[in-house]
């Protein structure tokens, strides 16, 4: 019985973080307007972050939708800040036509 009560704080913490997260994520859904320098920032961040682990694939390897998901996957795996990930995504979407 004691063991179970010990685990309750972890559950509460997880629930709190989850609730905060959903509210924060909902607020994030409003897309910011792309500023003129986003492309340049994205190109630089793409070269800097991706090459830390692997060779850089061509931007034309993926569609816009695929890059959207792939960049999120890499954001999580490589601990890339969200704003940097959005710059990279904007650069890849503009470069894959």
């Amino acid at each position, binding site marked *: 019985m004691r*063991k*179970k009560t*010990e*685990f309750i704080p*972890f559950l509460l913490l*997880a629930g709190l*973080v*989850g609730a*905060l*997260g*959903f509210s*924060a*994520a*909902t607020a*994030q*859904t409003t897309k910011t307007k792309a500023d003129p320098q986003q492309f340049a920032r994205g190109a630089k961040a793409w070269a*800097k972050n991706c*090459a*830390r*682990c*692997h*060779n*850089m*694939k*061509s931007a034309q390897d*993926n*569609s*816009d*939708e*695929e890059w*959207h*998901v*792939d960049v*999120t*996957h890499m*954001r*999580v*795996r*490589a*601990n*890339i*800040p*969200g*704003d*940097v990930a959005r710059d990279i995504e904007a650069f890849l*979407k503009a470069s894959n*036509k």
Partner: protein
Amino acid sequence: MRAISYWGVAASMATAVASASITAPLYAQDIDQAQLLERLNSLESEIQKLKQQLKETTKQAEETKEVAKKADRKASKTAKSIDIVRPNSWHLAGYADVGIEFSDGENADTFTSGKFNPAFHFQYKDLVLFESEFQVETSSTGETEVTLEYSQLDFLLHDNAVLVAGKFLSPVGQFQERLHPSWINRMTNAPAGFGHGGIQPISEVGLMLRGGVPLGEKLFTYSVALGNGPRSGHDGVELEGFGRDDNSNKALSGRLAFFPLDDLEIGGSFLTAKIAPEAEEAADEHDEAEEETDDHDEPASELAEVAEGDYDLWGFDMAYTRGNWDIRAEYLTADLKGLGGDSDHDEVPEPLSWKAWYAQVAYRLSGVTESAFIHRLEPVVRYGRFTAEGDHELEEELNEKRFNVGLNYWVSPSVVVKSGLEFRNYYADEREDDTRLQLQLSYGF
């Protein structure tokens, strides 16, 4: 009389001239009119032709305009369809590899079936990402083995925080989480002590909070996980993610990293957990049935007899990736301190410890010469050690030095042909040293 005759001659001459001058213009007028009429007819004909041509040109222009409109509509439709990112979007990625290995040691020369690792990523808006990867491979006995590498929900809480829930790759160190896919790994296998059977945790089941935080111009990253943790077993300390915990203690693990330079990453990792005795695990029959039985390469140990142990692991890693250089090093050390043993007889087992490290340098030859072939080559060397202390049998099985030298040919950024020589030097006198020639083809998609 003479005067009159002069006037008469003059009058006659004037009359003659006048009559001549009247008759000549009348004749010329007749000719001009005919020419004019002819020209007029010709002009009218040309005008008709031009009108016809204009009509045809206008018709063609209309048709062209219509075609252009259709093309424009089609192009914009195509562009729109490309640009659409649906609220529920997905992406398929992964990798596959095949290989061959020649050995002068106890292992036979063999083709290796390699692995097929499809990875699925599903994202709902900017809220949540579900990602999962399977590993499908053929075992040495011919059976198809399917392993769930990870299956996790990533909640995008904030630009600097992501909450991960489920089964995920362990954040400890850099090799397992980032470098182990064969199209990323510069060598054909993992360094000694890393990967399956090593001391680097493979995966974890639980929760993890992670992200990157800018500190001025620099970046700081963190990953902190709370999970079911490792278990003791017949294979030693098993650091795979278990679907159920065998004790109520949760393992805390993580990695903190800092980038003093854009191209230099320095990280520190830790894991702390309590290891429950295997006897409790055996009571859970349905879990036991799911245990892997193919342990031919794994060391046997007496760890199952450890009653309750404190397992602590820490380490650090670095990566320098600038231009053609890819330099990495990683160090991990772990201790298991037995608390019980046989408490009835006051037996306290010897503490066990493990250490594993490697350093690796790769250099891509692009730009070195003008040869298109040469610039796809990448020489690589790696040296590492894996040692255990506290249990003689464990030491005999695990302790080794491993030196690798290889040459990779990059067909494309994610397709690579790897060749390498591996020199394994075992500490145990009775174990014969081993030299292996390895070839591998890997494709990341």
